[in-house]
Each structure stands twice: as C-alpha cells, then as structure tokens.
C-alpha cells in the first residue's frame, strides 16, 4: 500500500473549521484507507479543552486551500488525489474558508487539551475506508472555535488500496 500525507502548519484558522478535507476519486479507482490524523497548536500555553471530529460531508463541499498529497515513501509515484479548492471528488485541501452547506456526519468525535494536541492512530479494524466513487469526502473538523486561532498544525495520512 502507498501512503500519502496531507498536512499544513503555522496556520491561522477562521474558527470552527474543516482543517483537512479529502474526497475519494470516482470509481473504479483506488479506495482511501485513513491511517492517521492529528491536530496541534504552538501559539497558546494556556490549558484548554478543544473538540475535534472526523466527519464525512456531502456536497456542497467546503472551500479550501488546495493541498497536494505527499508520498511518505519518497520514491513513490503521485497519489490519485490531487490538489483542489472545491472539495470535489479526487481532490484534497486544507483550512476551509467556507464550510459548504453539505451535511456533515461525525465518524469519530473526541476532545483534547490544546497544550498536548491530538493524534488519532486507529488499530486496523478501526481505520476509516472511503471507497472510490463515494458521494462524500472525509474531513478533519473543529466543531467549535478554539480560543486561539493562530499557529495550528494538522494533517491526515491515507493509504491507497
């Protein structure tokens, strides 16, 4: 399996924001197995709890900053997912500026202390698989605005299979 990372760092977010959004490509093609997600910040030394979600979203998708998935194994070829700002099928983006009207469905809900950040590493039966041709993408989402909006780092890792 080939793994790819979509991440960003040192980012100022708008509030309750989709941090990463990855939408599987049209079928028949590779399915995406999500292996890791993380959120952290380096701006605030004050202890505070922050909610986080992994959620699916159907169209209308968020408006994002385009992000090209990077292979974790440097010699791997490029992903079937490409950079995109509209959250469309086969694209990835970060730090939504507009959330989009499409319904979000939480797959995984958690909360973390902003001093420590949040790392999701599922054991194999708990990985999230988004099949090619899915009507929805998978997002890493802060459902409530954090107290400090600056210097956030976040990302997701998926494998193509």
């Amino acid at each position, binding site marked *: 399996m080939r793994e790819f*990372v979509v991440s960003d760092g040192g980012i100022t977010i708008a509030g309750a924001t989709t941090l990463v959004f990855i939408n599987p490509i049209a079928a028949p093609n590779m399915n995406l197995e999500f292996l890791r997600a993380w959120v952290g910040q380096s701006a605030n030394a004050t202890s505070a709890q922050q909610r986080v979600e992994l959620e699916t979203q159907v169209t209308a998708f968020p408006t994002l900053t385009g992000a090209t998935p990077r292979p*974790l194994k440097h010699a791997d070829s490029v992903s079937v997912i490409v950079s995109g700002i509209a959250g469309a099928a086969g694209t990835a983006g970060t730090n939504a500026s507009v959330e989009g009207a499409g319904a979000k469905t939480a797959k995984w809900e958690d909360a973390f*202390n902003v001093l420590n950040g949040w*790392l999701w590493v599922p*054991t194999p039966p708990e990985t999230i698989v988004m099949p090619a041709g899915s009507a929805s993408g998978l997002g890493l989402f802060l459902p409530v605005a954090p107290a400090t909006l600056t210097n956030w780092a976040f*990302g997701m890792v998926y494998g193509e299979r």
Partner: protein
Amino acid sequence: MGSIILPYMVRHGEQAHITEEYVSVPPALTITDETGAIWTLGFRYGVAPRGEFAFNVLRNGLETGEIASRIERHRGRTRIFTARGWKVFTGIVFI
C-alpha cells in the same frame, strides 16, 4: 509507512510548558519534557507490542532509534511502551 518530518515535531520558540504526568502519545500529539524537547511518534512502522501499532520515536524531530506504541510522561520522566515493555529515558538513552 515512510519517514517525513513535519513542523509540529519540533519546538517553536521558547519553552512554554512541561507536559503533565500520565499524558500519553497517542492520543496526545506531543509531549514536552523538562528540557523543552518535543516527543512524538513518526510515520515508520516497527515491531509492535501485541495488538498495537508501533512507530519510530522522535525527539525534536530526530530519530531516537526506538520503536514504541506509546510515549508517556511518568514521574517526571519520559517513558515509551515497546515490544520489550516499558523503557525510561535517562536523558541520553532509553533503558
């Protein structure tokens, strides 16, 4: 998975806090120790304790040579859970 270093794996600016006792990576993203070092798990798979994933252990984004499923603050030290059980960081190596 392969290896890649990302911004959150290293310290940014002056040390602002020390991670509390019993905070564990995961589900925390990083641990900050009393020297200001940032501990986290990398992307490279390794030999795992039974039933768990294990990855390379990074200190300030650099390899420690250890593979673990968890990093934890415990009694003022950093310890890791490996396929051979718990190891504690002495300031130089894990024993």
